[in-house]
């Protein structure tokens, strides 16, 4: 672990964009955790002050209801990050368990599950998510995250499976089998550490994928519009004609910038992990 963090630090120091990504992700996490404690949105904003420009009180101006856009951004961070994180945990967990077990066991469960994986990989995920979200129509973060993970696990399951198959024939696995270790031990203690890198990178990219789809659902108005998050902000700005006036420009662009910065940070940081786990890439 110590060696790991030393390596990570070394790579981050060499790759400034990855370092910036890591710092920004940390910042977003802090905002998501502590933001709502310090900033509150009034149920009704100051009706007399719609569409103000940036000021000391409202660094990014106000929206149509006179609410501070900066405050809305901060309050809206948690729901987005929360759902993205839960969805990534679900896809990663399912992908890893399915991949390791089918890859290690082989036989007919493998054949059946891989057929399911094929289907999940072929069906376009976003339309499926849209359709399911339309039928279920829930704003509960866990339900939303579960919907978003409906096909996301399949790619990881397949990658982990092929890793597990190639690990099956390696000596330490044979040793574990000879000792008669239970399946749980083999999967968790022998196989899992060896697929760790894939999983870590997939986890990060899983968060970006979930955030992409989640914000999209709010943008299209398919997920119920309640509370405040970045997707809802953009949706409201658009429906107030933000595309054709300059008045609502900050209202439209601030949440967009928040999303882009977060997504880019994740991608840049995941590249550093890629370098860390893949020494072959490091040499080149």
């Amino acid at each position, binding site marked *: 672990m110590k060696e790991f963090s030393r390596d990570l630090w070394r790579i981050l120091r060499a790759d400034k964009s990855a370092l910036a990504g890591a710092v920004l992700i940390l910042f977003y996490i802090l905002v998501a955790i502590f933001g709502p404690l310090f900033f509150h949105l009034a149920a009704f904003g100051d009706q007399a002050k719609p569409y103000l420009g940036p000021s000391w009180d409202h660094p990014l101006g106000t929206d149509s209801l006179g609410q501070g856009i900066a405050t809305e951004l901060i309050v809206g961070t948690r729901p987005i990050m929360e759902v993205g994180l839960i969805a990534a945990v679900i896809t990663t967990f399912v992908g890893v368990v399915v991949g390791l077990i089918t890859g290690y066991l082989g036989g007919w469960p493998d054949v059946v599950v891989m057929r399911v994986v*094929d289907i999940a990989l*072929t069906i376009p995920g976003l*339309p499926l998510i849209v359709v399911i979200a339309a039928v279920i129509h829930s704003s509960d973060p866990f339900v939303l995250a579960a919907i978003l993970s409906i096909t996301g696990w399949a790619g990881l399951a397949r990658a982990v499976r092929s890793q597990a198959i190639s690990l099956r024939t390696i000596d330490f696995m044979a040793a574990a089998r000879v000792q008669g270790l239970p399946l749980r031990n083999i999967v968790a203690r022998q196989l899992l550490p060896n697929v760790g890198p894939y999983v870590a990178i997939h986890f990060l990219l899983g968060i970006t994928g979930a955030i992409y789809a989640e914000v999209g659902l709010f943008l299209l108005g398919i997920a119920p519009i309640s509370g405040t998050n970045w997707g809802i902000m953009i949706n409201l700005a658009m429906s107030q004609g933000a*595309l054709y006036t300059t008045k609502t420009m900050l209202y439209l662009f601030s949440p967009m910038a928040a*999303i*882009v910065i977060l*997504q880019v940070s994740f991608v*840049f940081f995941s590249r550093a992990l890629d370098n860390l786990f893949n020494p072959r890439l490091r040499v080149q």
Partner: protein
Amino acid sequence: MVSYLARRVATAIFIIFIVVSLSFFMIRLMPGNGMEFLQSQLSRQGGLTTQQIQQQVNAIYGVLPTAPIWKQYLQYLGHACQGNFGTSMSFPGKPVMSIIGNALPWTIFSVAVALIVSFVIGIAVGTVMAAAQASRITKFVTLFVSFLSAIPNYLVAILLIYFLAGRAHIFPPGGAYSADVIPGWNWAFIGSVIMHSILPVGAYALIGFGGWALQMKGSAISTLGTEYVRAAEARGLRRRRIMQSYVGRNSMLPQVTLLALSLGFMFGGSVFIEQFFNYPGIGYYLVGAVNSRDYSLMMGCFVLITISVVISNLLVDLLYPVIDPRIASPAVRKRRTTATSAAEEQPAAVGGTMA
């Protein structure tokens, strides 16, 4: 080759079957499902006997709500095989299939053009980046390209509309063609279609090409390390030829596999892109159907999007053995190398002009 083909086709048909079944059970079995919704809506309106309500439901969904579920299912499957997905509710009297039939060509057109544009540009940029890995420009372009590929496509769509259609009025803000041209093979119509498609296609491509470039770069770099490339260098072949015929062609193989995966992603993206550009493709109608609770149209769109993806995947699968004969049958490889070596120059030359 034949067994390879048969296996692919069988998988494709199986997936379509699964999706059609999925669409049936989602409408019928989910809480608050479309059919119950319609029934309660009709009975609230009043003035209709139970018999008439059932006939209405039957007309829209194509199945009798009172029949046992397995019978409904078989009926639905039978209709789906004939391309009958019932009648739309938000466009009264119009069969779902005729709406989709008008929408699908727009989606296929824009997605296909965007995919080709982003693939060609991405492969070219990626090969160049791999050839000059150490240079400063490559490092900057890598950074820039991974920045681009991390931006959600709908945000790019919004930005394009805002700056190029809303502010600057360079491009039309929406629709597939202007109202004042007559659809048909005339220049005014074709020009209008092209003008209207530039922004949507640009939104797909701007995001898409980055991913291709990065993958191509990675793939080309690992090909650069192989022995046959070293051998080619030792033989004193020109750099350009090595990049084209040895590196470009071999590192393109994994990209073709990814082509299939990205197709699904792009068709999925049409849900956003078409909505913001008011582009009357299938994603546009899918979202419209969701918002007006038009479940038969929604499921029809979903099934047809999936079928489009499955068929395009099939096409990519069929393309694969052409690019790499080893896929179809390892034994063919030896026999065909002489025959294909002439043909092999062709695609490699395309890659070369880009490099």
